[in-house]
């Protein structure tokens, strides 16, 4: 029986996603065949600098302080895409140093993922493996560690992905918990895909994660404001082994600005939880400590995006479907050139954000899509992307290299 008189608080397993895309320029028809620079360098530098000031620098300082003050009892995981790491190297070495400092505390686990924040797992196992390996090398060179738990782009997950992660040697893999698969069960336990032997699956606690990532500053929410004490109470309410609090790193200071009180929340929540005996765990520690208690059978891919929690944020309309299909269709041709410039340009176009901007969804989700998009409309995002792809195809046909914008 799991119903004890006094349940222990489940261990918070916190993971932050760090990512910035390389946004593309408005690549019009007249550029095709003549303009090998696809990315909006100015905008990317500006966005990175802005997010660094609002989030990356102050939030790493905050988290490092919390780790150090707690003697490492506050611990969590980070997953950083290859693209954001490149941007740190390019636009903000101080940011990279801040993250390395955080990692060096020993209380921070770094997860594996696709280097280019891509949907490769849906289109090509080979390309997926190439990117995961590329990411592994990047993490090794910058942080000196080997990721042991995998988080696929945007928490895209299904049985086959769990199996693939196991094949690649990971001991854990992250997933969204969706009600149609949980069917009333708690997300606060590790689970196992039906087709694997050892790898354990983490299910994001959707409600509690989004309380901090999205609803935190929503004044129309009846629970507003969330205090550390209130949140700790919610953590305790449902029991279980662990509570997976998975969210964007940018939710501290960028999605939720400083004036929402998000910094103060973390500053107070962590010491309060520790004082009350709460034990934070990182994903690898959780894999060691907790058993997978039930089977979680996920045939169709799920993700953490939008209301639908499926692939519709990136592949919901015909523009997105065509763009993704045509991009991945040239995989073997690109690889065959053994041309580093072409490979890099093609890989960067795989960043799922480009497809995200083409979404024609309305409502709250649509507003989020538009908030992030650098383009006037999803249609313009599609037009410019396809023009870019046309140029890449021409370069491919020419079979010669052109310099890519640095």
């Amino acid at each position, binding site marked *: 029986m799991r119903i004890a008189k006094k349940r222990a608080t489940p261990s918070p397993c916190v993971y932050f996603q760090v990512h910035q895309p390389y946004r593309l320029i408005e690549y019009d028809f007249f550029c*095709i065949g003549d303009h090998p620079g696809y990315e909006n360098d100015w905008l990317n530098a500006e966005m990175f600098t802005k997010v660094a000031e609002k989030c990356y620098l102050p939030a790493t300082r905050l988290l490092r302080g919390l780790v150090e003050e707690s003697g490492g009892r506050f611990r969590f995981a980070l997953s950083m895409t290859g693209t954001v790491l490149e941007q740190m190297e390019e636009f903000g070495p101080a940011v990279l140093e801040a993250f390395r400092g955080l990692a060096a505390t020993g209380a921070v686990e770094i997860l594996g993922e696709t280097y280019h924040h891509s949907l490769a797992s849906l289109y090509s196992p080979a390309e997926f493996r190439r990117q995961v390996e590329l990411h592994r090398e990047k993490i090794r060179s910058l942080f000196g560690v080997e990721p042991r738990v995998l988080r696929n782009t945007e928490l895209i997950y299904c049985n086959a992905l769990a199996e693939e992660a196991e094949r690649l040697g990971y001991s854990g893999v992250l997933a969204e918990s969706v009600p149609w698969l949980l069917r009333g069960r708690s997300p606060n336990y590790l689970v196992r895909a039906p087709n694997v032997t050892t790898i354990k699956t983490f299910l994001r606690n959707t409600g509690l994660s989004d309380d901090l990532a999205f609803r935190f500053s929503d004044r129309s929410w009846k629970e507003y404001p969330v205090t550390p004490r209130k949140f700790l109470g919610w953590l305790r309410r449902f029991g279980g082994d662990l509570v997976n609090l998975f969210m964007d790193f940018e939710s501290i200071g960028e999605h939720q600005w400083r004036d929402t009180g998000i910094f103060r929340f973390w500053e107070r929540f962590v010491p309060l939880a520790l004082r009350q005996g709460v034990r934070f765990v990182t994903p690898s520690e959780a894999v060691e400590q907790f058993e997978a208690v039930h089977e979680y059978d996920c045939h169709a891919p799920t993700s953490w995006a939008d209301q639908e929690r499926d692939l519709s944020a990136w592949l919901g*309309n*015909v*523009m997105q479907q065509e763009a993704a299909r045509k991009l991945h269709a040239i995989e073997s041709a690109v690889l065959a050139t053994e041309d580093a410039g072409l490979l890099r340009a093609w890989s960067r176009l795989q960043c799922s954000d480009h497809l995200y901007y083409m979404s024609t969804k309305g409502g709250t989700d649509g507003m989020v899509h538009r908030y992030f998009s650098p383009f006037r409309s999803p*249609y313009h995002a599609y037009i410019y992307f396809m023009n870019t792809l*046309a140029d890449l195809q*021409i370069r491919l*046909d020419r079979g010669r290299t052109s310099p890519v914008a640095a």
Partner: protein
Amino acid sequence: MTGVRVLMLGWEFPPLVNGGLGVACYGLAKALAKKVRLQVMVPKVDGLPADDGFSLLGMNRVTPGDLVPAGKHYRYESFAQVEHIPVSLPAYAQAGGGLVERRMARRRKAGEFSRTSDEQLAVFQIDDLYGDDLGLKVLEFSKVVAMLAMQRDFDVVHAHDWMTFLAGVEVKRATHKPFVAHLHSSQYDRVGPEARDWIYELERYGMEEADRVIPVSRYTGRILVEHYGIDVNKLRPVHNGVDPVIRYRSRKKFPEKLVLFLGRLTSQKGPEFFLDIAARVLDRKPNVRFVMAGTGDRFMELIESGAYRGLGGRFHFTGFLGKERVHELLSMADVYCMPSVSEPFGLSALEAAQFGIPAVLSKQSGVSEVLPGALKADFWDTELMARHIVDLLDDGSLRARVAGRSQAGLAAATWAAAAVKVAAVYEELT
């Protein structure tokens, strides 16, 4: 120069140009000014007067004092009973602009003509020549123009398209001078054969009242007879001219052939047929690119339809392009395609011919009368259109023949030639 004095009424006029109407009026006016004494009135004039040989008056520069001498003698004839003016011009409508019904606030007793006030003239202090209050602008234009006309000397009034037809009728009633209605684009073209709305009625009324009607093509003349019931004996078709350009070729930056569509993305221009044509051509010839230049209310659905058909990467949308960009496209295009559902003239096909590009045109167009060498098909026959395009791309001698035959038509398509014909119409009436 003959002695005929002409009062010309226009709506769009450079630099205030929305479609081809303003370009055509200006081209014709410049050429006519060498033959007749011409004064032009339009809703709005910006900037300094140009020395084009005719006078140009914008209603935005008329003061109430200018109208006083005529006010007492003039009874407003045409729309004295009007209570509601529904306004909708789908081809030009901005996104979100639907049917607007404006109740006439200043309804008068029948026969009592309104004294033109500052407020009425204020409708010409405008940014948009169309817009939700288009109907009101049309009415006020007709009243003000009629009162101005009573104070001027002229022999013929010549009005361009429905926005000015009412003014033409008013001027004719007030001055008993002959009225020439010039039709560049009809509601049949813009909306389709089922159009029987108030704009259609206004077009028909204007042409019935006119002494002569000048359609921009024989194709349009046939529509005026068949769909508007206009007396065929009043029709005097005159093709538009085209201003000369400096023709140049530029190298494409890609190896594929380029097929071009230029025009508003509205049903009249048949953009969805062009998509279908592109899909059929690509089935046979993979090394072709298509450009759809222009914007309009079909923009989004065309993009989605293209994506569904998998044309992305080969079929490029540019949005609206300025003249220089259009010329750049023409300088590298291999075939021009105009699959319009109904095209009274189709100036852009002549511009393509100026750049030496062979054209594939819908039979439902006026310009095909000027370019006898162009390959033609019914707008709905996308299979034949696609075959024409493939033939032109594959067969160099056919290309040369089609482009070559167009040059003869092009040589005749001048505004000077159009002005000769229009002046002859004036001569009939004076």
